[in-house]
């Protein structure tokens, strides 16, 4: 099992198990992680699942594709080098747990 550690703005942490093939977004929605909406269900239509990946872990993940980059260029919260759309991060991960930080606002 892959694990994901979600860190909220106030420092609250929750560790969730994700089955193979499940995305970080789906794991967040299924477990009621505040701040990750996943409105479109992961088909890159909405950008409501923006997260910041732990900076040391970032380089271990597959790089974002063009359509993810286009949406990241327009996220509501501050875009950082570690910004990713969590629907595109799918288990298993090269690191365990994968640590992601929930941004301030999601629309």
């Amino acid at each position, binding site marked *: 099992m892959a694990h994901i550690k979600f860190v909220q703005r106030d420092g609250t942490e929750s560790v969730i198990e994700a089955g193979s093939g499940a995305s970080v977004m*789906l794991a967040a929605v299924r*477990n009621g992680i505040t701040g990750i909406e996943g*409105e*479109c269900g992961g088909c*890159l239509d*909405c950008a409501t699942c923006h997260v910041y990946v732990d900076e040391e872990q970032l380089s271990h993940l597959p790089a974002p594709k063009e359509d993810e980059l*286009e949406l990241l260029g327009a*996220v509501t919260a501050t875009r950082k080098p570690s910004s990713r759309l969590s629907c595109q991060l799918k288990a298993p991960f090269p690191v365990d747990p994968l640590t992601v930080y929930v941004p301030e606002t999601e629309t």
Partner: protein
Amino acid sequence: MSGLVVIGASYAGVQASLTARDSGYAERITIVADENSLPYQRPPLSKGFLLDLESEESLILRDAGFFEKKGIDLVLGTRALEIDTRSRKVLLSGSSELAFDKLVIATGSHARQLPINGADLDGVCYLRSLHDAVDLKARLHDASEIVVIGGGFIGLEVAASATKLGKKVTILESASRLLERAVSPVVSEFLLDMHTQNGVDVLLEETAVSIEGRNGRVAAVLCGNNRRIPADIVLIGIGGLPNDQLAKSADLKCTNGIVVDDHGRSSVSNIFATGDCTSHYNVFAREWLRLESVQNAQDQAKAAGLAIAGDTGPYESVPRFWSDQYDAKLQIVGISRNFDSQVVRGSIENGKFSVFYYRLGRLIAVDSINRSGDQMAARRLIAGGISPSQEEVADLSFDFKSLLKAANSAGA
């Protein structure tokens, strides 16, 4: 205390329960749903699920453990039959009843039926629920010719999926263009070309007069001009109607759905309604609307959940829709219906463009094909009441962020 009862366990019902709980509502919460499935994602039913990219398991949105953790009782496979507003009780199938202090009606919508001869034949399908999708997927496996009646979102998405599966698809649309109620002619034209290039026969201004059967099964569709189109499956996607019968029987005000205010409150103060089954005054469209979308279901339900928890936060989100067909990602923000001018940004030929719609100089909606950056900016422009000039929109080097930044620093 009898707490909160929610009828319906899709996006709206689940979100209203969740927001109420997370905003401090401490009483009992019970969700009653007539389907037997755990809450699941609906948009992939016409796309990834038919193409086998998603399984029933991967569609699950919230599992049983989630509801337990939130202290929400989920009662599946149970239909609400009647609401007694005076004694504050919901009568359920199986002759049980649930008392409530507050009630949320999130019963969604159902497919408009096509009243023609042969519409009851085996092989005539609708697509609204997981049950419908499982049935359609199984039938597609052995089918070779599909006739889709209705060129709306469901019809076009199923046509694209069936084409990808190697089926021969014909679309009948009674209007003069595709997706007529949602997009403008320029986008309709693009969709028509795309479907045609993918081998779909699109027949505009064409209606099905009857469906022919053989041994109780679908064999062909007869059109208005006596044309006969062979079919193993007929998929009907001619719009949805609100599930507001329960509310009507309880004397709640209904006009094209259950009438609610911007907190999702119905004409009875302790009864809320959210999602596809409701009609609300939309501040962006400046008219009463009944919207069938995930965004509306979730955002309206959040407003209702807040009100139930004694908090406030009115529903004032810009309407959003999306549709994936072949390699095209169509995204819509706002309601373009009453536009008086439009400007295209990007290249229609390359399949990467947006159409910005204006009314009396005000930006009211944007449709995008494979330009999600435009769409993201447009959401914030429309929400903030900012209208770029048509010259700025047409200029691909112009960055909308400058307008958004200016508005922010001006305290907008």
